[in-house]
């Protein structure tokens, strides 16, 4: 009897410990799972870093349409924006691939792409449903420049007369077309010029960051496409934006200054948070040495009339769409007035010039 009692005790003990272990295991796995989820933010350590296979396992399904309720925009006056839409025609082409159509390109299509005068999604393969243009290349990091060349060629061959400016963006770039039109309205599409976030290394006049997007004038596109027929520029390079920048310099296409009238950058290689928060990008980060103009962190980083942001994930696409085109502070008088500051700047410039001339005249008369 004693042995069966002790057996019972042993069984109870074992059973109890088993429950204990199980409960602890559950608790620990929950706690540890939480910690694993809080991954350290991956800073893109290479300026020419390509977008590696997404760690985003939770793909954002569906779409959100903020424009569905027109009711909230009854008092909105879009006349100036609409005028610019017709005056400054922009063809956007978005660099994407078969794996990213559902993950990324779809959300671009649901948000900012609708504001281009014409938008094309460029992939290695044609997809009639999305739709995408098939460039007949392979996918991958080393194919980027080749895809870019073929994409611009396609645009030149099929849509040259349909637009004045030709914008390249990634499927994780968010572009604010209204602000791009405002920037470009001061230039002629017949000028050989292109704009983007200007970087300084390797190319004397600088080159434009690929991810932040860049836009070519009609003349620039013409020269770029012709350059490959005459072998002025080479085809092989794994660094798309740098190769394009070198080619532009060879062709005497000017690297434009895309900063606003207050000197603030408009094309951004990262999301707003990375630029707005002082200290977010460590001082040893490549970015500080690459920027052509002195890089600014904090509120001065970014123009009120920003044109682009990069490394924008799917939720942030909709977040930006909402913040830019919908949420607003009622009755608020914005501090930065682009038209006003431009006028006073020009006025004082003109006045100074006139004074100079008057003085010169007086000197020559005496």
């Amino acid at each position, binding site marked *: 009897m004693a042995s069966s009692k002790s057996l019972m005790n042993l069984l109870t003990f074992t059973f109890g410990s088993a429950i204990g272990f199980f409960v602890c295991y559950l608790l620990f796995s929950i706690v540890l799972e939480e910690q694993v989820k809080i991954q350290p933010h991956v800073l893109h350590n290479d300026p020419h870093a390509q977008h590696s296979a997404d760690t985003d396992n939770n793909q954002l399904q*569906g779409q959100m*349409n903020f424009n569905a309720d027109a009711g909230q925009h009854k008092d909105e006056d879009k006349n100036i924006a609409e005028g*610019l839409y017709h005056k400054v025609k922009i063809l956007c082409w978005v660099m994407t691939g078969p794996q990213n159509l559902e993950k990324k390109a779809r959300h671009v299509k649901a948000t900012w792409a609708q504001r281009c005068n014409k938008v094309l999604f460029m992939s290695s393969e044609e997809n009639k449903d999305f739709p995408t243009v098939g460039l007949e290349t392979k996918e991958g990091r080393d194919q980027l420049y080749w895809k870019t060349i073929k994409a611009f060629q396609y645009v030149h061959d099929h849509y040259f007369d349909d637009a004045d400016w030709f914008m390249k963006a990634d499927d994780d770039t968010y572009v604010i077309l209204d602000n791009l039109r405002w920037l470009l309205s001061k230039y002629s599409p017949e000028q050989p010029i292109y704009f983007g976030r200007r970087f300084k290394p390797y190319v004397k006049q600088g080159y434009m960051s690929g991810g932040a997007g860049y836009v070519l004038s009609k003349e620039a596109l013409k020269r770029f496409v012709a350059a490959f027929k005459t072998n002025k520029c080479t085809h092989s390079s794994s660094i798309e934006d740098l190769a394009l920048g070198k080619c532009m310099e060879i062709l005497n296409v000017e690297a434009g200054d895309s900063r606003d009238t207050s000197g603030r950058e408009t094309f951004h290689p990262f999301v707003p948070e990375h630029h707005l928060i002082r200290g977010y990008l460590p001082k040893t980060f490549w970015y500080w040495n690459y920027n052509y103009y002195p890089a600014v962190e*904090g*509120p001065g980083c970014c123009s009120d*009339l920003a044109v682009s942001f990069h490394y924008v994930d799917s*939720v942030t696409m909709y977040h930006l769409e909402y913040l830019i085109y919908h949420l607003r502070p009622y*009755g608020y008088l914005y*501090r930065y007035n682009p038209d006003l500051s431009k006028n006073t700047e020009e006025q004082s410039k003109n006045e100074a010039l006139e004074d100079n001339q008057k003085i010169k005249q007086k000197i020559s008369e005496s």
Partner: protein
Amino acid sequence: MLVTLLGHIKVGHGTKAHHHEHHHIQAPNKEDVLNLSEGERVELSKSIRVYCIILVKPKDLGHWAAARETWSKHCDKAEFYSSENVKVFDSVAVNANDLWVMMRKAYKITYERYKDEFSWFFLAYPTTFAIIENLKYFLLKKDPSQPFYIGHTVKSGDLEYVDGEGGIVLSIESLRRLSSVLADPDKCPEQGGVIWKLAEDKQLAICLKYTGVFAENAEDSEGKDVFNTKSVGALIKEAMSTHPQQVVDGCCSDMAITFSGLAPNHMHVMMYGVYRLRPYGHSYSDALVFLPPPGSDND
């Protein structure tokens, strides 16, 4: 027209025992206020004065700093009521750790000091971001001498209360009634709830209910909530994941007043996104005019 409008705001309606039946409350009609001159609009904008209370604890220092540097600058006056004195920032120390006790003291002090200076009182937690201009627009035609208690409401059994996460708005009349019932230990004790403590936002609702003040959920003209207890990102994800096969409507109101659950960095992003970043060539003819706060670089 201006006189009638101002008359509405100051005089109020006749019946003092006016009981608010409706639980959903809306923003004013745009047509009502469109025919004013710029000067009249500035005057009208100045006539609505909002005092902001933000309840903080030392552990909230990051959020506290962000709120100080961002949205709270747009309140006519903002003060931080802290559980204890903190050297780094100015605050009103209430010397209590329990949120309900903190809230009681904050409201009591606020009423005593500011009852003649402000008509509306907005209480927020450190993780909340508020757009005060939209709050003022929302309150434009509401009479503060009526007992208003507005925010994002939740129903818990019989009790409808304003969720603190979304921010709590009280008119001066509600604050006055609250101030007197706070002294009643039967109706409004410091320790509510029999078995466990009730959340402070529920306690507030119970006390206010005794004085005839009832919670109202604030919505825009499309029926969307303007006080939000979550962040924009969270609301987007939620809306899209509940209907993965569809194109869903935009999550949030154009005239949203609050979002919550924000990290300090996100508050800086919201400042840029709300008060600066915009598309060129889109303009509105608004009935009110709000100037940017002086000496500020992020709005």
